[in-house]
């Protein structure tokens, strides 16, 4: 087993070395190293802080419980650090699926042992080992802890933290192997992050509301958690390290049980992950793909090939994690803008602030699918070859894909408008029409610029990824198009405070017609560009152009 362990460590080292063969690999390694260094500094600061707290405790006539408290905090922080380190420093993503190693002559138990050991020796863990050792050394030097029980407690705590860390990493890896779960987690994670962003505000409001309430109900309800906290590994480790009595032995035993439980549970998860089907879901219920007509119907006015492409693009957006997130975020922006507009009372250039916020919201809504507009082939991968093996002219390929995205952008705008209307009432006809026209006026130049960027710099992404990130240039181009569009659409708005106010939608409509004309004129040229760049495109999205 030892030779296999050495081989696996060597293998990981080789993977790390080979990752330095590309600029991207070097960049990633530098960033990871910097993050690990930051983590190391954090860990040392933590240990230092704990020591400072303890010195402070010693210098002042405070009870010994304070030392226990400081050690509990220090162990707790290290436990937390151990749990998140693989996710922060990238060790949670498996370089090699352990299932592949089963083809070698070794048992599952041996494989689990090797996986645990290599995990324990990963770079992310080497960061906090010195910090936990520093806690023990400091305690021994200062005479606060018994060297033997202290050492046993420190070693057991280390093993326990690693055990739980590897259990969580194993669970995370196995869950990631399931496509649908992965997509759900990504979408759920993003939504959770957004909720976390607004949570402090909600809590703050709740606090203010309950300011006159007096007794905290939460405190009463959470009282039962105290014994749970007392039995947590960090508390047990601190207890065992600081006091040399029968209670210390019990604490050590409890800590050993925590560790054994983590290793046993980790083993069960490891076996479960090895034995479950990998990617395919044969035998399970077919995923809901929606009715055919729901997406294909609205684009039936297009030529058959362009209509098929539009329907395909719309389906892809709706089935992607990024698309689902957009469907959730669009109404959130509607709420945000509605609340913002509610507080504003003044006017700008004669336009009441709520109307201006509404128009701005419409302008902004055109950018919800920005990453997909600037990367229209993002999820096509090898499928992109079909665009060149079928008789569909390249300009119609672009027309179809653009139309599909525009349809979803329209859906997101509708969501936003409905949310706004529910919060603030339906806007007046002139404001509503102007807003929709501003949205369309923004979408067309974005689409044209997006086609150029997509053809010149396609970036393949996993459809389950929460971001459909386009190339770096797209951000600058988007800002440029947005700025130009604000100026162009802003000119008719200058009529707001004049008698010619009803002309605003007319002028915006004229701009739209001109943009549509330009789009129609440019499509053949964009099609030619697509045809000229097809080999590069295939290479970037599907792999090598020839073999």
């Amino acid at each position: 087993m030892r030779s296999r362990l050495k081989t696996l460590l060597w293998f990981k080292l080789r993977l790390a070395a080979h990752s330095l063969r590309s600029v991207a690999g070097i960049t990633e390694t530098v960033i990871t190293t910097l993050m690990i260094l930051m983590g190391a500094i954090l860990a040392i600061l933590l240990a230092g802080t704990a020591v400072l707290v303890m010195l402070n405790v010693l210098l002042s006539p405070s009870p010994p419980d304070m030392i226990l408290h400081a050690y509990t905090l220090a162990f707790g922080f290290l436990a937390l650090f151990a749990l998140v380190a693989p996710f922060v420093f990238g060790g949670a993503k498996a370089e090699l699926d352990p299932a592949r190693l089963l083809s070698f002559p070794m048992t599952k138990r041996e494989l689990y042992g090797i996986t645990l050991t290599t995990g324990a020796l990963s770079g992310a863990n080497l960061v906090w080992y010195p910090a936990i050792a520093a806690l023990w050394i400091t305690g021994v030097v200062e005479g606060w802890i018994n060297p033997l029980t202290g050492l046993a407690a420190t070693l057991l705590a280390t093993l326990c933290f690693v055990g739980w860390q590897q259990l969580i990493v194993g669970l995370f890896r196995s869950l990631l192997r399931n496509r649908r779960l992965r997509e759900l987690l990504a979408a759920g994670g993003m939504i959770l992050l957004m909720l976390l962003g607004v949570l402090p505000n909600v809590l703050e409001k709740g606090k203010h509301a309950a300011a006159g309430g007096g007794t905290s109900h939460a405190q009463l309800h959470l009282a039962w958690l105290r014994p749970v906290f007392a039995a947590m590994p960090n508390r047990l480790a601190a207890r065992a390290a600081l006091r040399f009595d029968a209670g210390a032995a019990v604490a050590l035993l409890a800590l050993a049980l925590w560790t054994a439980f983590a290793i046993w549970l980790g083993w069960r998860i490891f076996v479960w992950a090895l034995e479950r089907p990998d990617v395919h879901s044969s035998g399970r219920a077919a995923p809901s793909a929606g009715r055919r007509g729901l997406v294909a119907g609205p684009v039936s006015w297009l030529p058959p090939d362009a209509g098929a492409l539009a329907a395909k693009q719309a389906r892809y957006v709706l089935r992607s994690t990024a698309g689902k997130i957009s469907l959730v975020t669009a109404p959130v922006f509607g709420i945000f803008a509605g609340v913002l507009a509610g507080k504003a009372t003044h006017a700008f250039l004669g336009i009441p602030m709520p109307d201006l916020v509404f128009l701005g919201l419409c302008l902004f809504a055109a950018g919800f699918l920005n990453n997909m507009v600037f990367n229209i082939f993002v999820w096509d991968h090898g499928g992109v070859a079909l665009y060149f093996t079928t008789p569909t002219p390249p300009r119609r390929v672009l027309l179809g894909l653009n139309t599909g995205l525009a349809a979803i952008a329209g859906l997101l705008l509708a969501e936003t408008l409905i949310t706004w209307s529910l919060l603030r009432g339906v806007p007046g006809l002139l404001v509503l029409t102007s807003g929709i026209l501003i949205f369309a006026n923004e979408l067309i130049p974005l689409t044209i610029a997006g086609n150029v960027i997509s053809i010149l710099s396609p970036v393949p992404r996993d459809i389950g990824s929460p971001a459909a990130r386009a190339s770096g240039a797209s951000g600058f181009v988007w800002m440029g198009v947005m700025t130009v569009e604000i100026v162009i659409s802003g000119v008719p708005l200058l009529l707001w405070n004049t008698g010619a106010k009803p002309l605003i939608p007319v002028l915006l409509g004229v701009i739209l017609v001109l943009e549509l004309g330009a789009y129609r004129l440019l499509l053949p040229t964009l099609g030619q560009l697509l045809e000229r760049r097809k080999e590069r495109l295939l290479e970037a999205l599907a792999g090598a152009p020839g073999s």
Partner: protein
Amino acid sequence: MPAMMMDTVDGSFAVETSGLVRRFGAMTAVDGLDLRVARGTFFGFLGPNGAGKSTTLKMLTGLLTPTAGTAKILGHDVVREPVEVKRRIGVVPEELALFDRLTGGEYLEFVGRMYGMPLSTVRQRSGELLDLLGLGGESSKLLVDYSHGMQKKVALAAALIHDPDVLFLDEPFEGIDAIAARLVKTILARLLERGVTIFLTSHILEIVERLCAHVAIIHQGKLIASGTMDELRHGVPSGAGSRMTLEDLFVSLVGNPDESTGALSWLE
């Protein structure tokens, strides 16, 4: 040495290349390929890894532009008349490259519409194709959830849905089970009866020998042999050609490794 397979009625071949070249930087993947495949032929296009088979196939199907030379499908130049060529061909690429977030039914509908077919026809044919390939019950499942063999069947269905005159198959038997392989062979035989030209590349030489009436072998970008199996056997100078299988012929033409180098000391 043009590989003349058989004369055609109207003078045009199903596939015809002349001095076809494709370079990638300094590397020449296909080097002056002259190939003629008559209509209605089951044609096997063979070569070792990296010989230029896939590059040739990609040029014939419009995915790569030739560096020099010409290629025609049914008399239409692949560079000057790409749309007409694409209308007449069906392709099953080696890397299946399907739109895997569509269901089987949606994908076939999508491909059919890309060929400009009426929706009712597409739906009727896709239903028939899925039933024939034993995927009728799976049509509402996303392709990403299909097994490799099922995906291969869908790729074949997509290549057939518009009733092509020439079918290009790159390794169609790789990764599918014996039952699926039998089904694919049956379908191909029926297509051949209908006059469809089948252009096949495969590493499974037994299948090529059994199915293909005509064979061409490419090596390092150049055509080194072509003809019927009998013609290839007669080309072997030793006189032992009459008993040779396609694999023997292939190895003698392309590989011919010195057997002693294959010996392993620890197996002696």
